[in-house]
Every structure is written in C-alpha cells, then in structure tokens.
C-alpha cells in the first residue's frame, strides 16, 4: 500500500514540471515558448528501454542458437518436422549467461515500461501525441502521408513539431501491441506461469507456437528499430537526438 502510493508520487512528480506545457502547445504554436519536446519520464524511459531492448535482442540471439528451429503447436524437437529452420550455427554453450541477461533485461523492460505507460496515461502523452485525429485515420490521409514520406517532402517546422499519422500509428502499435505481445508470449513459455494461467500458452496455440510468435514479433521490433533510427538520421540526427536527451528541440535559424 505504502509502496504503491510512493510510486504514484514519483510518477506525478516526474510529470509535474511539464504537465502544464505539454498540453496542446506543440500543435498550436510550435516554438513560441520553446516548449520541452519530451518530458523527463519519456526521455529516461526511452534510453533505459533502448539498453534493455538491445540486451534482450543479444541474449535472445544467444538462447536461439541452442535450438534455431521453430514449430507450431505444443511440442517440437530435433527429429520432429520444423515450421522454420534458421541457417544458424548450433551453439549449446551460450544460453546460460544468455538466459540470465535475458530475464534481468526483461524485468528492467517491464518495470520501466510500466512506469512509462502509467505516466503516459496520466499526462495525456498517448492521447495528445500518439492518438491520430479521426480525420487522419482515413485511408486517403494515410496514403497521402505515405506518398509524402516516400517522396521525401520536406516538413514545415510546424509539421516537424508533431507526429504525423504514420508515426502515431507506429508508436501506438509498438507500445500497445508489439511490446505487450513480447511479454505475454515470453510468459507463455514459463512452466510456472502456465501453471497459474494455463490459458496464456493456449491462446497462441501451445508452448512452441508461443515461442514462434515471440520470435516473429522480435523481428517486427527490430524492423521498427532500424526504420526508427534511419528516420532519425534522415530527419537530422542531432535535431532529433537532442530533444530525446535534454528535452529541448533545436530551433532553426536562431541557432542553438
């Protein structure tokens, strides 16, 4: 009880300074007050998550080398037909540290992600910055935005201060679909968790199916990471990195 309320205090305290400014400011009057682009929670959570995600991918790779085959259903092993057999060298000696690092990083990812999601719900971060306007979700608007992006049309300063519909839909899927799927399929593989909630592996079609989905969603997240980093590079590396580090955008013309 006591620890729970302490948690809330921290979340509110972290949100407080920028709560007043985050509001609708970026959309209406970008740059007028040089508003902080990302709140402290978002910035800290972003970099902790980056480290945890990299550790998860590396350690997940180490675990995968012990059995680079995927199956559908409950069971599967050498000697039973595989759904996919990856052309990777079999290595049975890397899963000890691999598992220890994987589960340490998973705890960090889940705890950090929970703080981020709770604080984002309270502060309106998701509602303001992630939820697309109703008009934007129309197929025409999405295609229009997609063709703009593909033709590298330069963004106005106003546009660059807010997320466009493609970014919004991507971030919503990453935060509310892909990461939760990773966590649930990961938990589905635990013989202890499946004893508590047998439905968890069952909804994915069994233990091995959960493992397979875990692997495919990993690939989607890696694709997201590559596109995300490429976009940051194309949009101007420091103009995008600085807001995520110090919370301040780089102002054009006026210098830094």
């Amino acid at each position, binding site marked *: 009880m006591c*620890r729970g309320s*302490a*948690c809330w*205090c*921290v979340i509110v*305290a*972290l949100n407080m*300074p920028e709560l007043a400014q985050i509001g609708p400011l970026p959309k209406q009057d970008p740059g007028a007050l040089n508003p902080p682009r990302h709140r*402290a929670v978002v910035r*800290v959570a972003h970099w902790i998550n980056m480290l945890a995600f990299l550790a998860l991918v590396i350690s997940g790779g180490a*675990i*995968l080398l*012990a*059995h680079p*085959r995927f199956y559908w259903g*409950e*069971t*599967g*092993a*050498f*000697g*039973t037909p595989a759904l996919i057999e990856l052309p990777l060298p079999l290595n*049975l000696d890397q*899963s*000890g*540290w691999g*598992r*220890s*690092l994987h*589960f*340490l*990083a*998973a*705890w960090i990812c889940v705890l950090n992600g929970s703080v981020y999601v709770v604080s984002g719900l309270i502060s309106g971060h998701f509602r303001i910055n992630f939820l697309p306007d109703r008009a934007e979700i129309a197929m025409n608007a999405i295609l229009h935005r997609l063709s703009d992006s593909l033709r590298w049309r330069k963004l106005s300063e106003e546009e660059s201060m807010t997320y466009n519909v493609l970014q919004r839909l991507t971030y919503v899927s990453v935060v509310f679909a892909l990461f939760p799927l990773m966590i649930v399929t990961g938990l589905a*593989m*635990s*013989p*202890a*968790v*499946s*004893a*508590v909630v*047998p439905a968890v*592996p069952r909804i994915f079609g069994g*233990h*091995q199916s959960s*493992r397979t989905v875990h692997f495919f969603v990993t690939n989607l997240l890696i694709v997201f990471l590559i596109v995300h980093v490429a976009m940051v590079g194309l949009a101007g590396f420091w103009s995008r990195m600085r807001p995520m580090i*110090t*919370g*301040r955008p780089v102002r054009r013309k006026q210098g830094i």
Partner: protein
Amino acid sequence: MSSSFTRRRFLTSAVAASAAASASGAAALLARRYGLTPPDHGGLFGIGETLTYAAHRVLLSRQPLAREFNRDQISANFPAINTVMPEDDSYRQDIVGGFRQWRLTVDGLVARPSEFSLAELKNYPSRTQITQHICEQGWSAIGEWTGVPLSLVLNAVGIQPQAKYVFFNCVDGWWDSLDMADAWHPQTLLAYAMNGRDLPVPHGAPVRLRVERQLGYKNLKYLSSITVTDSAKDWGKGQGAQGAENGYSWYAGI
C-alpha cells in the same frame, strides 16, 4: 540553458533516483524477510534471479498444478540429452539385474534417515501425469510419468521444521536442489516409469525427478541420494546447484 531548467532536471533526477534506490532496497529487504531470495542471488544477474523467484513464489503460493495433457498428445520423439548412460561400473551391472542393488538414501534434517529400494518406492501410492518437458535449449516434448510423490517420501522420513532445501545427488555426479514449495508440490515425483514402461536408461533409470513447473534441467536423472538441509552453503559454491555454477539459474520456473 537556463538555471531553472538544470535545477528542475536535477530535482526530477534526484527524486527518481532516490525512489528507485529505496524501492529496490525495500524489495530486497522484503525478499530476505520472507525467504524469497534464491541461493544464486549474488551479482548483477542475481537481481533478475531474485525478482523472478520472489514473483513466482507469490504467484504460485496456492500451488497450482502444471498443465497436464491427454494421452494422444504424448510425443513419439522425446529427446534424451546430457548423460544418457552413466559411466559408473556398479550402475551398469545393476541395469542387467533390474536395479536390484540400487538404493535411494534420504538423510539430513529428517527424523528417520532411510534407504529405499526400487521395490519399496513402488509400494507407495503412485501418481501418473502427462506433462510437457521444456528444455532450456528451446525444444519441448510431452511424456507420461509415473512415480511416488516426493512428499510421501519426505513424510515417511519426517522432515524437521527448519528444512529449507532438498538436495539431490545423481549416479553421474550431477547435483541440484529444490525449495520446500516445489518439494511438497503434488506433481513433484520420484518417477520410475515413462509412458507406461520402466524408465529407460537414457531418461534416467531407475528413478528420476519430475519438477513440472521448472525447466527440463531441474528434472534430474539417475537419482542416488536425497539430503534435506536448512542452507545451501555447504554444497559446492553455495549456489544450490551444479548448473548454477555453470551460469544456469538455480530457479528455473522462468
């Protein structure tokens, strides 16, 4: 960069850092207070081990059963890895004689240290369960196991109240341990039959451990003795398992 900006940033970081530090400190104290730290809780990875072990012990406090399956789901192909034939000479001679020489000794913090033959274990009420063996490598297979619940053997020898771990030694030199929650669990078996037949040698004959809520490597093969203790300190490096010394978690409920 204005001074209010840096001060605000300093304050928020300080609040966040102290909250995180006190939360993890409180969590560590609570874990120790309720005995929720695993023997391999040291080091950086020990943080993850402790979080997982403590969380699972709370989640599993009502001792739910691991998933059980139907007979038609039993895997035709059930791999046997690591030791598939112990090198011990007397063990090999015993195979021919149907393990008539084999004994399971049970000692440590028990009222009546005892020795059980295979026939004696088979005289106890048995349990049969069809469960999934999940290997840490990534493969899994379903098999049917029959054996005496470890709890019946522990009751027969009389466990002293300060007991905290049950250690197992194997013919091939491997050793590991369980906490009392898993030791008393109804699905934890000293299994002597697999898929309706005597346990085959590659799968750990004459008797292997089944711990269904943990990964395959906790299900020791070729059992030879059981020792009940109140501490993991005197075993190897004190991490509770030979596997833990090679980097594999002592608690493998994942």
